[in-house]
């Protein structure tokens, strides 16, 4: 029997970009932030504290090479080389595997700083929902962390949980949000928080005659509840912003904001870049203070 190519519903789009308005040759300080997560990795290159280039791709099973791969991806459409970079900061779950890093900074600090940059200095509460964790971060107007709570032990509410569901229901992950609203009536959330149990529950719901979109809605609703309970524990102060891949999932975020009664801030930047952006900015700050690499 000929083997069909199995459609990978969980696979999201990998992207890179170079800023056409910046000539890197004119920049005084060029810094690099690399965020190696368990699911995705990002590289952000800042020229004098402005976005110059970035890459966002799957970390894959070869984590030690992820940093190198994502940097290469970020530099793909520019003639700038790694040698020009003045300072590099590594962050994320895999920050020990960023060989070109001059130092590492925690992902909490980087996400707050990055959110402050991509959303603006009014942000006080940052929700980061990444591949394998959920962070609720309180920060000041400079993007400095004042409090935080993290769940990195349980897949419920994380990107991985959503990938598992997209796969189960054969829905491309980028379509989950939209389709979860193509329903007549909002179903109750799935009762299990645990992704493994929610999967069984979802299969049961499908057998009972629920449409795929309704099951998606039920799951997104449960995930929004889960995330909300974490946020409540750290307390929400406006303005509120979301970073990480889940920010792109309307199915979860729209239901979450309804529960919160608060509209999240908007940005034109890719929300998955917050950690790497914050890292690049920390590097920039160090260089400006003359604490960069010794020449």
């Amino acid at each position, binding site marked *: 029997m000929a083997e069909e190519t199995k459609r990978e519903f969980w696979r999201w789009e990998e992207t890179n970009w170079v800023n056409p308005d910046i000539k890197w040759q004119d920049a005084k300080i060029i810094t690099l932030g690399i965020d190696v997560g*368990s699911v995705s990795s990002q590289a952000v290159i800042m020229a004098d504290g402005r976005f110059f280039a970035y890459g966002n791709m799957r970390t894959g*099973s070869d984590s030690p090479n992820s940093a190198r791969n994502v940097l290469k991806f970020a530099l793909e459409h520019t003639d700038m080389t790694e040698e020009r970079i003045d300072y590099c900061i590594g962050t994320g779950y895999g920050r020990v595997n960023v060989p070109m890093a001059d130092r590492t900074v925690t992902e909490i600090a980087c996400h707050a700083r990055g959110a402050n940059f991509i959303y603006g200095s009014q942000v006080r509460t940052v929700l980061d929902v990444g591949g*394998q964790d959920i962070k609720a971060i309180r920060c000041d107007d400079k993007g400095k962390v004042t409090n935080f709570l993290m769940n990195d*032990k*349980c*897949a419920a509410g994380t990107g*991985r*949980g959503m990938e*598992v569901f997209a796969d189960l229901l054969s829905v491309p992950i980028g379509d989950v949000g939209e389709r979860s609203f193509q329903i007549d009536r909002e179903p109750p959330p799935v009762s*299990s*928080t*645990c*992704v*493994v*149990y929610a999967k*069984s529950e979802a*299969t*049961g719901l499908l*057998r*009972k005659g629920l449409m795929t979109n309704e099951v998606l809605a039920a799951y997104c609703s449960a995930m929004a509840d889960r995330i909300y309970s974490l946020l409540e524990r750290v307390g929400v102060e406006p303005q509120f912003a979301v970073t990480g891949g889940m920010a792109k999932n309307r199915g979860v975020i729209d239901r979450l904001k309804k529960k919160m009664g608060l509209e999240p801030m908007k940005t034109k930047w890719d929300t998955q870049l917050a950690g790497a952006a914050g890292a690049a900015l920390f590097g920039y700050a160090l260089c400006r203070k003359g604490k960069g690499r010794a020449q």
Partner: protein
Amino acid sequence: MITAGIDCGAKNTKTAILNDGNIIGKASVLTGFDQSAAVKESLDLALEGAGMKRDQIQRIGGTGSGAQSIQEADIKVNDMKAIVMAAHCFFPTARTVVDVGAEAARAAKCDEKGGVVDFAINEKCAAGAGTFIEAMARALETPLEGMGLLALSSDNPIPLNAQCTIFAESEVVGLIHAKTEKKDISKAIHDAIARRIVSMIRRIGVNPDIVMLGGVAYNPGFVTALKRELGVDQVYIPESPEFGAAVGAAVVAAKDGNG
């Protein structure tokens, strides 16, 4: 007195038929998505096995996560009561009962009369129940029945850091890519779940004698890891441990019937 106990669990629905405390028939069927149908099938099969008719059963006790679907039950028996009753009947010296099933793990502290003194339960997280080992068996591409012995063939402890079934699957795949021996991975899997369940048991106290019920008791790798984590030499397991709660429900039905 002839009674039946029906335990409608997340994965399997078990029926035990007792005559004055002796098991004369039992059956287990997959619960699937229709609990009521599974309950009926399980009871019918157990009756058939015992060579009995429905009207010969004087009272039926219903228990388990799907207890509300057991229309045949004369009495609903609380899960903890069911497992403590069963442990007490099998082993009168039982003071701690641990029941690990497919989707829930329960621990109860009991007294010499078979009364429930304290209890703890996990029915929210797959990593603390049989589902964890099943999922890891798939990740290891090893039949579930072979996982326990595979684990016992290793004496090399390695870390398995993920606390979540979903994350552990990724971690196991990573270990396989790194050419880690499957037996060492299997050992780590059993150690991990045993640790989680023991930390649940510690909430109610570890008091010998310890009885284990539930389908996971068939897994020698798990039982060994559990004993080691508990720091005990002996854990008592009845024949057909997966019927524990069903037997307990049948016993309670009998006591209740006697008024």
